[in-house]
């Protein structure tokens, strides 16, 4: 998964996208919500959204052991499902992504975690 993150990160940086963490007073992460600016063509926008999901998984998924991330599948225009392998089970986290007119994307909702 670490390798995949690096590749995505490079792709995203190459496209000029910036990951933004929302920081509160004192430097602590104020909330888990993340945003990215994804004003670009379709391929790079989807890569950007995948990067957003990867960022969220890295920040919030509480089971670092197991088999790691197996897939992120687009289920609708703005719906994505991440699958992570654990003993006995595969955790599936459903994301609904909000894409603003200015190209910024954020996680509108998340379920399954």
């Amino acid at each position: 998964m670490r390798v995949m993150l690096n590749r995505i990160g490079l792709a995203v940086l190459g496209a000029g996208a910036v990951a933004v963490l929302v920081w509160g007073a004192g430097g602590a992460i104020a909330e888990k919500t993340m945003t990215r600016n994804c004003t670009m063509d379709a391929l790079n926008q989807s890569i950007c959204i995948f990067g957003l999901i990867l960022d969220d998984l890295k920040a919030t998924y509480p089971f670092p052991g197991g088999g790691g991330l197996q897939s992120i599948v687009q289920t609708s225009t703005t719906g994505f499902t991440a699958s992570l392998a654990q003993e006995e089970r595969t955790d599936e986290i459903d994301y609904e992504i909000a894409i603003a007119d200015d190209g910024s994307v954020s996680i509108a909702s998340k379920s399954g975690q």
Partner: protein
Amino acid sequence: MRQTIKWPRFDSEINTDACDPYTNGILTLTLRLGFRQINPPAGAAGSTYHDYGNPAKPSRKIVRWSPAAWESWKTDLCTTAQDYWRGKFWLSNDGGSFLVKKGETYFLPNFKCMLNIEGADAGVGNVHHTVDAVCLDPAEKWFGSHAALYDDQDTQEYQSGENSVGKPIMQKAHVHEIGHLLGLGHVDEGKPHCPAGSDTNLMPCYGVSDKDKNSVMGLGMGVREVQAQPWRVALRAFAISEVGRIMDAKAKIVPTSHLFFMPRCAYAVFPASLIEVYPRTIAEMKAGTNVISRLERG
């Protein structure tokens, strides 16, 4: 008295032979596992096998079990899981069953919960559960297991999660899986975020609070009283069986104390504790007194 009741998941035996005013009874569950190797086909040294045995899931490299590795793994799994689960619980005899008489005084023994795990190759004798097992290629670090499909690394501790402050929670997968084979569900099953009858393998079923996550039927290695449920079910069956014996016309004269207690076993719950509770007199039992230290019994 020694008596055995066989269940689909395990055999149970009660032993009150040594019971006296200071000595409790022993309740032993025996789990017979039949192990079956999953090897590369046609004599090949290596191949692949899918997580959870599900062809839709990723495959992992496996190698052929060597006789030595197979015997060592089976022994390790049975021994360490048995050591984990045996002797953890005491069941309080709140049903008034299994009376022991000393002089003119009746005592109610409680029960220490023991577990035997007997492992053999599948196909040899009767087993309660058949368990498949793969031997991972040394390059593989993980394989998706479940209660009936293990890998050779499942007896090793791994990080299964983290608590609310980011501290790792560690578990040995086989101990959790043996809990399932005994009939235990996940720690939060039945709670609103993990309703019974739904998919109880969802993340929240493994615990939301740190306490629940740390449970062996969550993500950790902690033991909880509620996990004595398989032994409680067995003890209840023995208690009901005893009523049947007492009511048998050929039985010896029934002490009036037994007659007082016989109806109680119908609603006894045999509460579990993690510490030994010594045998009680009938008066102590009626008063709801738990004897947690060894008292002088004239």
